[in-house]
């Protein structure tokens, strides 16, 4: 057992070295996960603009459209709807991952120069990035095998996580603003 742990350590180091050698200079883990920088988004599909993105986010996981289609009692229409909705959901989720990765890249690019980096805040933020990307990947998986409105609770969770950031942000911004204002 003990020996196995040492072997695992050696393997882990070897794996990290291979990754270290493969990544092009000045690029990080993200480049390995997604060499094209599109995060799996098909090249023929363009990225959403911000308004489209928000609007589609509202609509994709909603039950309204599905309820409406079900009222029509047409199996072929239902099939067509599911096929189309899955495609849109996948595209939208891939776009979310691209956006999160892009925000992460921007943050890391800035924070590596930061003189007063707060390690705890940084680690928390990095874990949040990992969590959000993993959540999007889970949603992608669910969308692939179930109805697009099925991952509603997961999406709600995603929403709440993003929302939880807000009070902290408001508080800190107010504080930062207060410090800077003349008394």
């Amino acid at each position, binding site marked *: 057992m003990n020996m196995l742990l040492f072997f695992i350590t050696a393997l882990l180091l070897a794996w990290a070295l291979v990754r270290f050698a493969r990544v092009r200079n000045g690029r990080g883990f993200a480049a390995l996960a997604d060499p094209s920088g599109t995060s799996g988004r098909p090249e023929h599909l363009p990225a959403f603009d911000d308004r489209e993105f928000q609007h589609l986010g*509202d609509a994709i996981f909603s039950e309204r459209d599905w309820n409406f289609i079900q009222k029509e009692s047409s199996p072929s229409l239902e099939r067509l709807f599911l096929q189309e909705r899955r495609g849109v959901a996948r595209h939208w989720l891939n776009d979310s991952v691209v956006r999160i990765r892009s925000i992460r890249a921007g943050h890391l690019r800035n924070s590596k120069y930061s003189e007063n980096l707060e390690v705890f805040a940084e680690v928390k933020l990095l874990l949040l990035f990992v969590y959000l990307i993993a959540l999007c990947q889970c949603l992608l998986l669910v969308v692939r095998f179930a109805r697009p409105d099925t991952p509603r609770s997961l999406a709600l969770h995603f929403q709440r996580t993003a929302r939880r*950031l807000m009070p902290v942000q408001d508080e800190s911004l107010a504080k930062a603003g207060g410090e800077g204002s003349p008394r």
Partner: protein
Amino acid sequence: MLTPLIWFVGVFLQFLLLQRGIQAKWQRRFPLFYSYNLFVFLEDVSLFTLYKWLPLRYAQAYWICEFVGVVLGSLVVFEVYRVALRPYPGTARMARNLLGFVFALAFAKVLVNRSHGALWWPARDAAELERNLRTVQAFAVLALIIVILVYAIPRSRHLKGILAGYGLLLANSIVQLSLLSHLGSSFQSVLVYIQPFTYDIVLCIWTAALWSAEAERNALPDDSRDACGDHSRLVLRTKQALQSVRPGLPGMDRR
């Protein structure tokens, strides 16, 4: 016949590496790395001589040299950290904390063993002790690689070569010393070939990486440097940007 050949290749490569480093004055940039190599070079020559003339003293001298090598090797890791992250104070701070965490864990393990009445380090012999020390080093290298990759730190071919070679040396050492502890003397006869051979491979990596000159990289003057003043503001800005990425759901009011 094979052992002296492997040994000769190793000494030759080491000589080449040192000679090239001194010629190009790279020992000023990587003093600890070249000190480590000079030590290993002298160790190899003196141990071979000792093996020829005083074979009974060889084993003792070998393990003493190995431990000095482990200590100097830790300094090589420190040097990579120092050179690679000098222009990036934020990443350097992160790496310091991560390395501190690795060493604190190792220290905690020592304390726990001691409180249980075990040896200060749970090693039955010198090979096990070296393996344990190499494992701590491996975690330190792993932490360094993760930080360098996550922050996409630019690295010169020299740095890449030094870290890759040393990492390979560590991974090999851990596997070989674990097998030695487990299999005992039956593995010893294989180890006398494998160990110097793998070290020759490491020397090939170092010699190839450090053969030609490469301009020293400084921090890239990119447009991100305007935001590097205050980290807490940067975190807030990132969180704000993350707010825009969320699946909007009916019944959920937006702020």
